[in-house]
């Protein structure tokens, strides 16, 4: 049943429902009709019995029973299917109209208004037995009224046969109808499937139109469209990334080529050659670092950076980094402040790299004489780390994309700091995410803050 198509399932269910309803209706009809016929028969038998009793009431002696016979025949003879038998207490038949019926003896002793039924080979009888006592008689007479209901039974047999045939036909018809209904009902689903199947990397911009889709499918189509949007975004980002790589490498390569060709175009003194080689070395180093960074990101994308799992005191990591960057901070008269403590589970080297990027970033954008604050805060659920620096704020439209590769909030900065290829924050994010952490940035009121949140390592001590 699990592998059946929806159409088959729906038509089967439809067929079962229709058949079920028909069976219930048929059985009820059958039962009601039988009951109805039975009560009609009973009514008739009771009426006749009453009338016979009335006639027999006038009987004073068994000897003048013969005088009543015409009267009884008149009463009972009109009814073709009805047989009346009157016996005396010795079992002698006094009266039988239209003739004696071969009934088992046990039916002669049933009393009261109970209706009995008896099946012969071909015939079915329904009957009533009653003891009748005339005035001045010592022993009662036995009155048996027997109704031949074989015709009724024939009717029911035929009814049942036709009902069975009708049931089979209607089951087949309902299955066919169900199939047609299901097919047309599932039309929108096939349409959605067709659109989805036709999707390719080039048509990621397409969306399945919501308007003609029935209510039940709208949720599915919306989710599908949302997935397409995410795919499209990732795809565009990836394409841009490749384009960016090409661009970022082309600039230094073209510098190298031009510079080298110009230098070689005529004889120069040794210092000029030296100068050219030094300049080349700078470009090459930058390219080499960029390749390293891109490889790191590629590995992160493929889930290949697996941080070591050690318990690390963040304040020690920050301490080491601050000791390093304090040299640079002092140069610009910037203060580095560290508060709080907390633990994370992870890889010291990677965390060094991630936080170092944030600190060097902060140092780059903090005006002279101000303070960069690094705070660590450990709660019961997580360990938080923030790096806050005063300075020009980052416009909100850039915040979201700040961690994208090669993204620079200010395109002009590209020329200003050639060593910064715009991969630092992307690397930081990759590392934080490899630690099951989150990173985001807020920037307002002259303060830019990078927030990081790590899961709290198991069994770490409360620090605050």
């Amino acid at each position, binding site marked *: 049943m699990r592998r059946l198509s929806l159409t088959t399932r729906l038509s089967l269910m439809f067929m079962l429902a229709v058949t079920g309803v028909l069976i219930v209706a048929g059985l009820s009809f059958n039962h009601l009709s039988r009951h109805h016929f039975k009560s009609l028969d009973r009514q008739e038998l009771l009426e006749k019995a009453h009338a016979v009793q009335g006639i027999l009431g006038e009987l004073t002696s068994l000897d003048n029973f013969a005088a009543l016979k015409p009267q009884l025949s008149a009463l009972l003879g009109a009814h073709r299917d009805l047989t009346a038998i009157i016996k005396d207490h010795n079992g002698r038949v006094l009266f039988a109209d239209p003739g004696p019926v071969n009934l088992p003896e046990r039916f002669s002793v049933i009393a009261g208004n109970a209706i009995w039924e008896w099946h012969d080979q071909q015939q079915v009888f329904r009957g009533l037995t009653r003891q009748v006592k005339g005035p001045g008689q010592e022993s009662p007479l036995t009155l048996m009224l027997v109704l031949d209901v074989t015709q009724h039974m024939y009717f029911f047999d035929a009814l049942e046969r036709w009902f069975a045939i009708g049931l089979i036909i209607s089951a087949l018809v309902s299955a066919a109808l169900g199939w047609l209904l299901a097919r047309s009902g599932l039309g929108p689903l096939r349409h959605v499937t067709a659109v989805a199947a036709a999707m390719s990397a080039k048509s990621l911009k397409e969306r399945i139109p919501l308007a003609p889709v029935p209510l039940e499918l709208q949720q599915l189509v919306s989710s599908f469209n949302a997935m397409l949007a995410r795919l499209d975004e990732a795809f565009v980002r990836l394409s841009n990334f490749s384009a960016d790589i090409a661009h970022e490498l082309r600039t230094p390569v073209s510098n190298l080529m031009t510079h080298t060709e110009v230098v070689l175009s005529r004889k120069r003194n040794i210092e000029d050659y030296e100068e050219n080689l*030094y300049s080349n*070395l*700078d470009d*090459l*180093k930058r390219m*080499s*670092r960029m*390749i*390293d960074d891109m*490889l790191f990101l590629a590995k992160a994308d493929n889930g*290949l950076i*697996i941080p070591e799992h050690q318990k690390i005191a963040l304040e020690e990591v920050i301490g*080491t*980094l601050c*000791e*390093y*960057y304090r*040299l*640079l901070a002092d*140069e610009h008269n910037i203060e580095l402040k560290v508060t709080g403590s907390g633990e994370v589970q992870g890889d010291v*080297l990677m965390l*060094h*790299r991630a936080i*170092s990027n944030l600190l*060097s970033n902060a*140092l780059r954008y903090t005006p002279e004489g101000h303070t960069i604050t690094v705070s660590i805060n450990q709660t019961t659920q997580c360990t938080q780390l923030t790096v806050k620096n005063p300075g020009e704020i980052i416009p909100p439209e850039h915040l979201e994309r700040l961690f994208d590769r090669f993204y620079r909030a200010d395109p002009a900065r590209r020329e200003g700091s050639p*060593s*910064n290829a715009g991969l*630092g924050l992307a690397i930081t994010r990759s590392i934080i995410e490899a630690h099951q952490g989150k990173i985001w940035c807020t920037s307002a009121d002259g303060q830019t803050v990078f927030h990081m949140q790590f899961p709290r390592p198991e069994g770490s001590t409360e620090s605050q």
Partner: protein
Amino acid sequence: MRLLVAEDEPKTGTYLQQGLREAGFNVDRVTTGTDALQHALSEEYDLLILDVMMPGLDGWEVLRMARAAGKDVPVLFLTARDRVEDRVKGLELGADDYLIKPFAFSELLARVRTLLRRGNNSPTQTHLKVADLDVDLLKRRATRAGKRIDLTAKEFALLELLLRRRGEVLPKSLIASQVWDMNFDSDTNVIEVAIRRLRAKIDDDFEPKLIHTARGMGYMLDAPESK
């Protein structure tokens, strides 16, 4: 000092050989793993520099077979692939160090010298002296021309590193890793600042200048006459 360079890429191999020769080493070069193994087994080298990807035998095979033959010469791997399992494999086989391409030649040179120094380390020195600069490692005190120079802990560590590796160009990354424990390539000019400050204390008021900049490569401490 005799080195073997096994590198199948001809340009890289030639430049490595030239660079190491000019740095004062006696360098043999081979281009296949099979040759590398043959040389390593038949000759005495102080260091093997092996490329991982080579025709014939790869670098790991060469190392494994050389170790199996009882050669415990230090080995430095060059690899274009940087995968954790590669590093682990190399280190398990008994490699002493590895460098990922592209690398700076100054970095390679510094690592080669570290490996060669390992083992025959001069017994714990307590005094380092270059020209009229005198450093007492036990008392953590530096004097130049008899004048006491106040240094911070990190400045002292930097000076000690430069002195211990006197005459060698030390790349910035190596300085950052040895003095500040920063084991990744950082793009800031912290080391420049640190060197400038150290210079201000030990060089500015004195002659001759001891700390030299190897442009684009790193820094070196040496007395001019010993060059």
